[in-house]
């Protein structure tokens, strides 16, 4: 890791002015009382353990809830009984949309769900959007911009809002789920959480446990790219994909 960037020269004077505007002369030494900051890593771990247990216990109803909220948020939702069925559904979506070039991430989920074979059988050969073969930044970007469809896995899917948390890392480019006009997200049952609170509690713990080693970036994708900026008329597919599919295993 590169060294920590230096403190901005104006910081001290800036904070002094803020403090004096608040009518104080001394800096605050003890952390202000705030419920979400209170729990240390151990207590947060305890909290997350409860969350995980609850989500396991209610998995099947949460999956149903996700399917409902996603459909209401303009996702095309398909549910698959097993990996083979899921792969078949993805090939079917690609075929129906007349997809010619498809990019996918290099996530582990595609080791469990082999989508490449059924895709090839419908005449689509998936390209893996990764820098592996000494692709430059520009080449990667062009590849993503040219593709008709992107397929990736998710870190979590949140039933409350039909939000898929997508975390880019090695093998998972940010542009794979953003640049192509069609997107398919493949969700495994243990990735599904009930609420936003569940997700952020887990995220906080992850950051506490792996300080400096976790991803600096993630996204929620909660539906098709949309705008209503011209005459308040809803139009889908502006900068991101206008056609979004959620394939839920289980």
């Amino acid at each position: 890791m590169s060294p920590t960037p230096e403190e901005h020269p104006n910081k001290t004077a800036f904070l002094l002015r803020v403090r004096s505007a608040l009518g104080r002369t001394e800096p605050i030494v003890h952390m202000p009382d705030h419920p979400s900051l209170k729990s240390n890593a151990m207590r947060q771990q305890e909290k997350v353990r409860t969350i995980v247990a609850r989500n396991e216990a209610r998995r099947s109803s949460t999956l149903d809830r996700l399917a409902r909220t996603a459909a209401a948020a303009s996702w095309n939702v398909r549910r698959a009984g097993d990996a083979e069925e899921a792969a078949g559904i993805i090939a079917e979506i690609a075929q129906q949309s007349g997809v010619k070039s498809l990019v996918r991430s290099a996530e582990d989920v595609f080791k469990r769900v082999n989508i490449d074979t059924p895709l090839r059988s419908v005449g689509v050969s998936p390209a893996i959007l990764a820098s592996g073969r000494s692709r430059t930044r520009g080449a990667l970007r062009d590849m993503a911009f040219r593709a008709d469809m992107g397929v990736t896995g998710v870190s979590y899917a949140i039933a409350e809002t039909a939000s898929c948390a997508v975390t880019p890392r090695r093998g998972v480019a940010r542009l794979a789920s953003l640049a192509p006009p069609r997107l398919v997200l493949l969700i495994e049952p243990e990735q599904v959480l009930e609420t936003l609170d569940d997700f952020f509690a887990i995220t906080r713990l992850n950051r506490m446990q792996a300080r400096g080693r976790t991803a600096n970036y993630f996204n929620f994708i909660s539906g098709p790219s949309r705008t209503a900026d011209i005459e308040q008329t809803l139009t889908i597919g502006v900068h991101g994909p206008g056609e979004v599919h959620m394939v839920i295993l289980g």
Partner: protein
Amino acid sequence: MAEVKSAEFKKASGKALRDEKLQHSLEHVMEHFVGARANVIEDDFGDESWEAMRTRAAGIKQSTLEHLDYYLDMVDKSVRRNGGHVYFADDAAQANAIVLDIAKRNGVKTVIKSKSMVSEEMGINHVLEGEGIEPVETDLGEYIIQLAGETPFHIIAPAMHKTRQEVSTLFQEWLKTAPTQDIKRLCVYARDALREKFAVADMGISGANFVVAETGTVCLVTNEGNGRMTTSAPRIHVVLAGMEKIVPAIEDLALFLRLLPRSATGQRITSYNTFASGPRAPSDEDGPEEFHLILVDNGRLNLLRDEVMREALRCIRCGACLNHCPVYRKIGGHAYGWVYSGPIGAIVTPPMTNMKVARDLPYASTLCGTCKDVCPVKIDIPRLLLHLRYKVAEGAIGERSTTWMERLFVGQWHGAMRSRRALEGKANLGRLLTRPFARGGKVRKLPFTPMVSGWTASRDFPAPAPRSFARLWREELAHDNGTELR
């Protein structure tokens, strides 16, 4: 800093009121937002009601403001720990200089921007253009008003005053596209034009909806995907954030992400939420190599310093107070003369810019209180408006703001309200003087009296009843008792 044109408030609102096309689109869009919000705040939030959520959010933001120096320090340490740079800018000029320095150091030629109200305050586009750097707005609405050379009409719907014909004409001129009435087509034109910019831009500038102190995470709330593009495609990501944008912990976002989109567009969640805490990790496939967070004061200290006004900094810029304001709904956003409009604009513009220039804004309200009722962080906007009016009247702008007539009237009023007899006497006098001018139950115009005729020039006064309530009451009592009251 962007020019403050709030001194033109009265003239500009008059112009807006006479613009029929504008009146039509205001009515249409505001109705849409109000209805959509009403629809989703009734959702089942589990253990917490909408009202309880608003109270909790107000508490979190207020407490963060009360300890702002502490949390600013926390943000700084967290972001730098993640490998990002943090800057503290006192005003627009400093913030502009910091952005320009980063751009020049990296030989940046094209900058893509996702929506940022702070960047509007700074007038950064002009500054960049002046240095030969091309800034491109990527939010569709912002892109349209950038081409038109205007300022945002509404916090979340910047181009709501533009018709499809006007957008088509703009695109014909700037993008050399064919004329069309098809909105979908217009979006495709913009998408294609902006894709070219995404592919070549070296720097992306975004705003921040929330900055999480503990993790150093910047959260962006968007629908189009331009926020993701801006933070993913270019080599450098610069975040511009007002220093009040902080929430302490990442778990607080669950609450704010429920409140913000519902209050703003009536959505349960927007299509995209981007969470960026620093540059890409060495192991990441793509993403910016440099991450710069610029925390901006630019007049916010004036709000923080005043214990009454401080709560205005709780604002999360949802625009609900605009959508529900009977004044905004008639005059629209441009009349307010600066970056922020509607009730929130009326309370933040005078302290942040210039009390004297923006002195009319605190009066641009009927004090109906709807803004306070819909505010997701419970800012008591009417109280703050009155506080500013008080300051203006007390000479905060360096001159007496009242006329001798006003002072005479208030003096008389003061006298009348101290004694029942005096009040009745004065009310009877007023009745005698105004009744001759009443037509159809209303006094439309009063001549002769300079202050009062000024008042009736833009309002109707209900005609006084022939007999006062006090007199009716006495007569009723007398009738019941069969005796004459003294």
